C-alpha cells in the first residue's frame, strides 16, 4: 500500500512499459508474494514471483481496478502458479541440484540467524500442517498477503461465506494447537 494515490499513474506508466513503474510495483508487492510462496511450500518461490510478474506484464493492458485489486490480482496469479508447480512436482521426478548451485542460491545470512529462522519456520509449519489446504491458503493470504475476506474470496474463487468458515475453522485449529503447547510463543 505504499503507492497510494499514485497507483493510477504508476499503472498507466507500466502499461506503456516504463521501467520505473514496474520497479515500483515490484518493490511494493514482490516481498509479500515471496513470503506467500515460501509459506505455501512452492518448489521455487523466487521463480513463482518472477513468473507472476511476467504474467502481469502480459495482462496489465486488460486489468481494471485500484491498488488493492491489483494486489489481489497478483496474488491470484501467484496462487495459480503455485498450484501448477505442485501439480508438476507430483507428475515429474526432480533432479537434485549440484552443491555449487545450492551454495550460490542458498541463504546469505549468518548461520545463527538462519538456524533460528529455520526453527521458527518449523514450528509454524507444524501448526499450519494441521490445517486443511483451503484453511491454510485462506489464513496465509490474510496474514502474509494482507488481503480482506472479499479479496481472498476472489483469489481462491470461493464465496465470502465459505472463506469466513474456512478462516474460523483454521483459527480454531490453531488455538487448539496453541493450548496444547505445540507452539512455543
Amino acid at each position, binding site marked *: 500500500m505504499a503507492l497510494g494515490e499514485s497507483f493510477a499513474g504508476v499503472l498507466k506508466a507500466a502499461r506503456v512499459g516504463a521501467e520505473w513503474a514496474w520497479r515500483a510495483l515490484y518493490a511494493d508487492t514482490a516481498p509479500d508474494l515471496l513470503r506467500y510462496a515460501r509459506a505455501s511450500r512452492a518448489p521455487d518461490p523466487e521463480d513463482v514471483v518472477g513468473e507472476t510478474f*511476467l504474467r502481469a*506484464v502480459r495482462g496489465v493492458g486488460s486489468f481494471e481496478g485500484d491498488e488493492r485489486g491489483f494486489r489481489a490480482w497478483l496474488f491470484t496469479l501467484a496462487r495459480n502458479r503455485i498450484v501448477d508447480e505442485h501439480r508438476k512436482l507430483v507428475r515429474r521426478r526432480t533432479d537434485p541440484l549440484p552443491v555449487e548451485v545450492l551454495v550460490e*542460491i542458498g541463504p546469505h545470512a549468518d548461520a545463527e540467524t538462519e538456524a533460528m529462522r529455520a526453527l521458527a519456520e518449523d514450528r509454524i509449519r507444524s501448526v499450519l500442517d494441521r490445517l486443511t489446504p483451503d484453511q491454510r491458503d485462506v489464513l496465509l493470504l490474510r496474514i502474509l498477503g494482507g488481503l480482506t475476506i472479499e479479496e481472498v474470496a476472489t483469489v481462491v474463487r470461493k464465496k465470502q461465506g465459505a472463506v469466513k468458515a474456512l478462516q474460523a475453522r483454521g483459527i480454531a485449529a490453531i488455538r487448539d494447537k496453541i493450548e496444547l503447547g505445540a507452539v512455543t510463543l
Partner: protein
Amino acid sequence: MSGSIGPDDGFERLLAGETPKTPEEQALGLFLEDVRGAFQAEPSLAEEAHLSAIVQAAQLLADKGEPAVRSASKADGRARHASGLPKRRRVIMKVPLMRSLAAKVVAGLVVLMSMFGGLALAGALPGQGSGEDESGVVQIQDVESNEPVETEAPETEAPETKDADDQGENQDADDQAEDVNDDQANDNQGENEDADDQGDDDQGEDADDQGENVNDDQGDDDQGENEDADDQGDNDQGEQD
C-alpha cells in the same frame, strides 16, 4: 469460541494491528508475529534478473517495435522457407463403427429386415403362399373317370389371379371347364356305350364269339328272320350232315 464459524473479531483486530485484549488474542497475536517473522522476504539475488526481464517484456508488448528492443538486422522479416509453412496434417482417428449399443441394435435390425424382405419378395414366407395356392387351383375333370381332378395352374398364371376380375374369370373358366366336361361327357356317352360294347367284344376275344356277335347282330337286326335263320341252320345242318 473455538468451534464457532464466522468472522473472528479478535483475529480481525490483530490483522488490523490493534493490541490484543484477551489472553487468547494475545497468544494468537504472537502466533501471527511468528508467521510473519518465519517467512521473511530478504532481498533476493534474482530481483534484478526479474526486473530486467519484466521491463524488457513490458517494452516489447507496449511498443512492439521500439528501437531499443528492435532487432539489429535490417531485414524486413524472417527469411521465407523454401518449402513454405509446414502443411497441416490431418490425422483421422479410427473409431470402431460398432462402438455403441445403438449401432449394434440398428445393424441387427437391418440384417433382419433385409432377410425377411428377401423372403417376402421370393414368396417364401409361411403365410404368404396359401391364398395364392387356392386361387391358383384349377379344377379339371378327368376325361375317363368324369371326376374333377385338381391340378395346379401353371405358375406363370398365378400373378393374374391376384386381381378380383381375374378371379371372376377363373370362376368362369372353371364353369367353362365344367361345361366343356359336361358336353364332352354327353357327347362321349354314346361313344362310351360303343366303347363298352367294344369292351364286351374284346372281353370275348374269340373268333367264335365274334362270329356269334355277328350272328347276334344279325339276329338283332333281323329278328323276323330268325326263323329263317333257324331254318337255314337247319338246312345247313342238314347239308353238313
